[in-house]
Every structure is written in structure tokens, then in C-alpha cells.
């Protein structure tokens, strides 16, 4: 698709946000009362925190709710239980999170598509924005993802807009009256941040594995806040009326229960669970074997209470003196 590029002056951002509301409920980065950055509804433009570094919970929450009713049982029959989705515009998503959603798309839209995910995804409009990396980020500087409908690359007095889908083009034409001709945006690299790793690295004699395992507390925070972690558990609850409700909710491979079967646990130790997470994240699973799902957002490093940084394992050996 031919990219349409045009310029939005900073002073017109609020008006632009208002036009986005035509396409759905507007959500974007805000800061909570306790000072935590999160994607939430933008009732007024002043709530928008465009200079945020990263939200605590990634936008996967819009596509894979933490807990979701997937089936209802009544009168002897199971029926789809996921609630319908309304149109939603998610504004101000960084490239790493856009790549995270692109990865989830590959998992949940593959045949047979997940009904809940695909419904919500089809109602979601993604507007990306450029960002300023901090010490926790590890993606190539200035990366611009095209896995969105519209991307806003910030410059001194405004934003260079580029559309990447038919919906993005519709957003542009809907806001045409606010846009002016501007200088062409600087070219930015696009792509994944870390190359896929060698699966055998998890068995390496690297003493870091033991150091990590000795400090890890299996809290699972790295997985909860990861934009591409999607493990889920399924539970069912009976109701007094004779019906039942089946839900799915986020699960975590750092938890000891993850590798359990009746009478055994295939990953009882922290070392094994850390290695398993590394293998999934950096080397991929069937059918995405060889695909690195780490998008470099830096959340795992920021939230880890014991400062584990799995990237140390993949860092090049320091040169011998």
C-alpha cells in the first residue's frame, strides 16, 4: 500500500484526538493516581501522557483480557461466552508494543483463529507514536513499526503521519482538514531488536544461569508485563442454577504449577523454569520456532525485583585484556 504522509502541527493534536473518537472509544497512555503509567480511556486530552517511557501493563490487555469468560454452559449446551467488542482506538503505542501485538496476531489469528481475540482485534485501531528510549529499552534507536494503522513520528513542532492500512488512510482523510504539508519524515529503521538465539544457550555452562536461579523469586512479574507472553489457564465454575462458566486467564511459566501433571512436575526448579522462559522468548515455539518474541520494551528488566536481566546471557563476551 502506498504510504500517505502528512504533517500535524503540535497545536492541533487535541483536535486530531477528537476526530479519532469518530473511529471508536479513545484510549492512550495516562498516569494513574499512584504514578503508574497505563493505557486507559482518554476522557479529555489533558490526560494524555505522550512523553511516557512505557506502561506497566502492555496493550495485550486489550486483546487478551487478564480474565475472560470464554464459554457459558446452560440447558445442556456450551456456547461462546466472550463478550462482543466495541470499536476502540488505541493512541500513542510505541513501536515495541506494536511489534508485540503483531506477534500475538501471528499466534491468535492463525487458523483456527481465536474467536475472542479476532473479534477484539478487528475492532481495534492502532495509532503508534515515536518514543525516546531510556536505560531499560533495548530496541534499535528510532525504530518505527509499521504494524499499526497510523504512525505519528514526532519532530520539533509536530508529527509526521504515515498510514499503514486502509483504516489508517481513513483516519488521515477524516483528519485532512487539520493536516498541512510538511517536510518528509526522517527514515527510521524497522525490524526486530534482538536476533533469534541459539536454543542450546540454555544448557550452556554460563554461571549466570545459576546466579539468576539463586535470586529469582518466581514472582512472574517479567511475564505478566511482557507484551508477547500469552500463556493462559482455563477454569470452569458451576453456578447454583445448574449452568457453568468457563474462563481463561493469564498464566505464567515461572510458576511451579506450570509444568505439573498428575504425579509429576517437568520443571520443578527455578533454573529449569528460567531456561524454559528464555527458550520460548528468544528461540520461539512451534509453529513460530526460530522467531524471537522479545520486542525490547524493557519492562521485564524494570519490574524484576531482583534485577535479573536475561540479556546478559546473550551479550557478547567482554574482550580479553
Amino acid at each position, binding site marked *: 500500500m502506498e504510504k500517505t504522509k502528512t504533517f500535524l502541527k503540535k497545536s492541533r493534536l487535541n483536535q486530531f484526538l477528537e476526530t479519532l473518537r469518530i473511529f471508536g472509544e479513545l484510549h492512550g497512555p495516562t498516569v494513574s493516581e499512584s504514578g503508574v503509567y497505563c493505557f486507559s480511556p482518554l476522557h479529555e486530552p489533558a490526560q494524555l501522557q505522550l512523553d511516557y517511557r512505557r506502561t506497566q501493563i502492555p496493550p495485550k490487555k486489550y486483546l487478551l483480557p487478564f480474565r475472560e469468560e470464554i464459554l457459558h454452559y446452560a440447558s*445442556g449446551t*456450551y456456547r461462546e461466552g466472550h463478550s462482543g467488542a466495541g470499536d476502540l482506538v488505541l493512541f500513542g503505542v510505541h513501536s515495541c508494543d506494536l511489534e508485540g501485538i503483531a506477534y500475538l496476531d501471528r499466534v491468535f489469528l492463525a487458523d*483456527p483463529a481465536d474467536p475472542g481475540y479476532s473479534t477484539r482485534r478487528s475492532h481495534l485501531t492502532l495509532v503508534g507514536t515515536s518514543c525516546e528510549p531510556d536505560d531499560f529499552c533495548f530496541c534499535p534507536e528510532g525504530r518505527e513499526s509499521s504494524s499499526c494503522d497510523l504512525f505519528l513520528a514526532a519532530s520539533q513542532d509536530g508529527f509526521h503521519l504515515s498510514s499503514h492500512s486502509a483504516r489508517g488512510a481513513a483516519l488521515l482523510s477524516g483528519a485532512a482538514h487539520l493536516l498541512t504539508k510538511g517536510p518528509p519524515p526522517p527514515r527510521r529503521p524497522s525490524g526486530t531488536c534482538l536476533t533469534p538465539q541459539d536454543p542450546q544457550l540454555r544448557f550452556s555452562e554460563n554461571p549466570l544461569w545459576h546466579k539468576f536461579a539463586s535470586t529469582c523469586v518466581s514472582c512472574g512479574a517479567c511475564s505478566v508485563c511482557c507484551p508477547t507472553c500469552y500463556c*493462559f489457564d482455563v477454569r470452569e465454575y*458451576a453456578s447454583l442454577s445448574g449452568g457453568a462458566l468457563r474462563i481463561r486467564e493469564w498464566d505464567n*511459566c515461572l510458576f511451579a504449577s506450570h509444568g505439573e*501433571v498428575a504425579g509429576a512436575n517437568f520443571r520443578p526448579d527455578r533454573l529449569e523454569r528460567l531456561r*524454559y522462559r528464555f527458550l520460548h522468548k528468544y528461540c520461539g515455539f512451534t*509453529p513460530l520456532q526460530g522467531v524471537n518474541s522479545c520486542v525490547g520494551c524493557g519492562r521485564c528488566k524494570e519490574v524484576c525485583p531482583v534485577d535479573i536481566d536475561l540479556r546478559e546471557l546473550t551479550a557478547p563476551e567482554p574482550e580479553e585484556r
Partner: protein
Amino acid sequence: MKQAQHTHVPIAARLIERTDLSEDTTLFRIAPEERALAELSSFVPGQFVQLSVPGAGEIPISPADLPAPDGTLELCVRRVGHVTELLHKQRPGAKLGIRGPFGSGFPLREMAGRPVLLLAGGLGIAPLRSLLMHLLRQRNRYGEITLMYGAKQPRLMLFREELTALAAEGGMRLYLTVDFAPETAEGNHSCAIGLLPDLLKGFRFDAATTYAAVCGPPPLYRCLVADLERAGVAAERILLSLERRMRCGVGRCCHCGLGQKLCCVDGPVFRAGELKGIPEAL
């Protein structure tokens, strides 16, 4: 959308018959609704179905036989957890749900013309029974068929009379063993006493062509794979039916990961050769 409906929403099934096999294990015969029959008729021994017990949840079960001509299915289930506990309370007529079949089955075409050695430990007899029944029904398509089955003690041995009768018909060789037998009338059964690998030790067979199908508790695999390889069975011809907590059955929930594979879509039947270097597999 038909496909998505099938893979996510269980199709209603009715419990029509139950036969207690031991104090905690029962054979359930279920009749799925007509619209599930076409899918289930493609079942290959070794594949699994997701059985729903309304109000409790869903569990992966490998059927104990191919679907009967009337479309009913036999599921051998031990009472070990929340879902199976409620299933065991169900009486004929109860409503259940079913999805599937999922995963890979045994490579039947490849096994044709070759001797097959089935090694079952405990409840591992359930998935292997569907393979055995298939082999016996197509008896002239396969080489020598041998079943070695080990249980903890005589009263926990499943399908004992049935297996003995099948062996008496001459279609297969049957070796039974128990870990120990109490000195009571109940223990007075004609079978060996000892572990399953001990049975294999004295067994003479054509290791160069035999296919071995193994299913049992986790420690059994490690032991038997080593013994079979030592006897000369290539790792590619050692077929293992693994057990994991498969929640979705379609490769999404990631509960059944082993290395970079998923038990639900790459398995549950694996070749021992595929699992080399994956510590969490066996």
C-alpha cells in the same frame, strides 16, 4: 467459522454406559451429538479428545478404542483431580461435552508390515488399547504383535480379562506383570511379579524392524527408551505417548510445552529421537 466453533465450543455428548475397571478407574462410553461424528471418525490411535464435564472443566483424554460403528466412544479415566472426580459421579444419561480429535497419532501406515511391541504401565494401557484394537482388527497388515503391561498390583490391572481373551485368540502375545502381589486370594493371579523393564530384558525380538509404542508414568519412559535402544530399536521407531495438561488443544495456552514443541499439536505421540536433548520431555 465452522472450524472455530468446532475447536472452541464442545459438542454435546451423553454418557451412556460406565464400567468400573478398578477402585478409581472407570471406562465411560459416551455418545457424541451427530455433528461431532464426522470429526471423530478421523480419530487415529494416539490422538486425544477434550472431554468437558459441565461445571468442572475440560480434560484431555486419549480414547481407549476407535469410535464404535454407532459413533460411541470409550474413555478410560482415573479419578485423580477436580474434573475426573465429578466425572466419576456422573450416571448414564448425564450430559458431557467433547472436542477433537487433536494432535498426532501413531504412524499406522509406516508401521504396516512390521512387528509392534506395546509397552504399557498403569493407566498407560488406555491410549495403547486403541492402538492394539486397531492392530488386531487389521491383523494381517502387521507383523507380530506383543503387549507387555505392568500394573502396581493385580487389582489395579485394567482390562485383564479382555486382554487375556484376545491373547487366547492367538492374534498377539501378552505378558503381564505386577510390581508386587499380596499373599491373598486376590494376589493369586497368573502373571509375573516385577517391573515392566524386567519383562523386556528376557524378550527376544527382531529389534531391527520392530516398532515400540510406550505409554506410562514419567519414570517409565526414561528407563524403557534406554532399554529399547540398547536392544537395538532405533530411536525413530520408539513411539512415546506423553501426558501434559493440555488446556486448549490447539497450540495456544502453552501448558504442554516441551522444549520448543507443544504436546498438543506436535504430539502427544513423539518419536524418542525427536525428544533427545529436551530434558522436560521425559
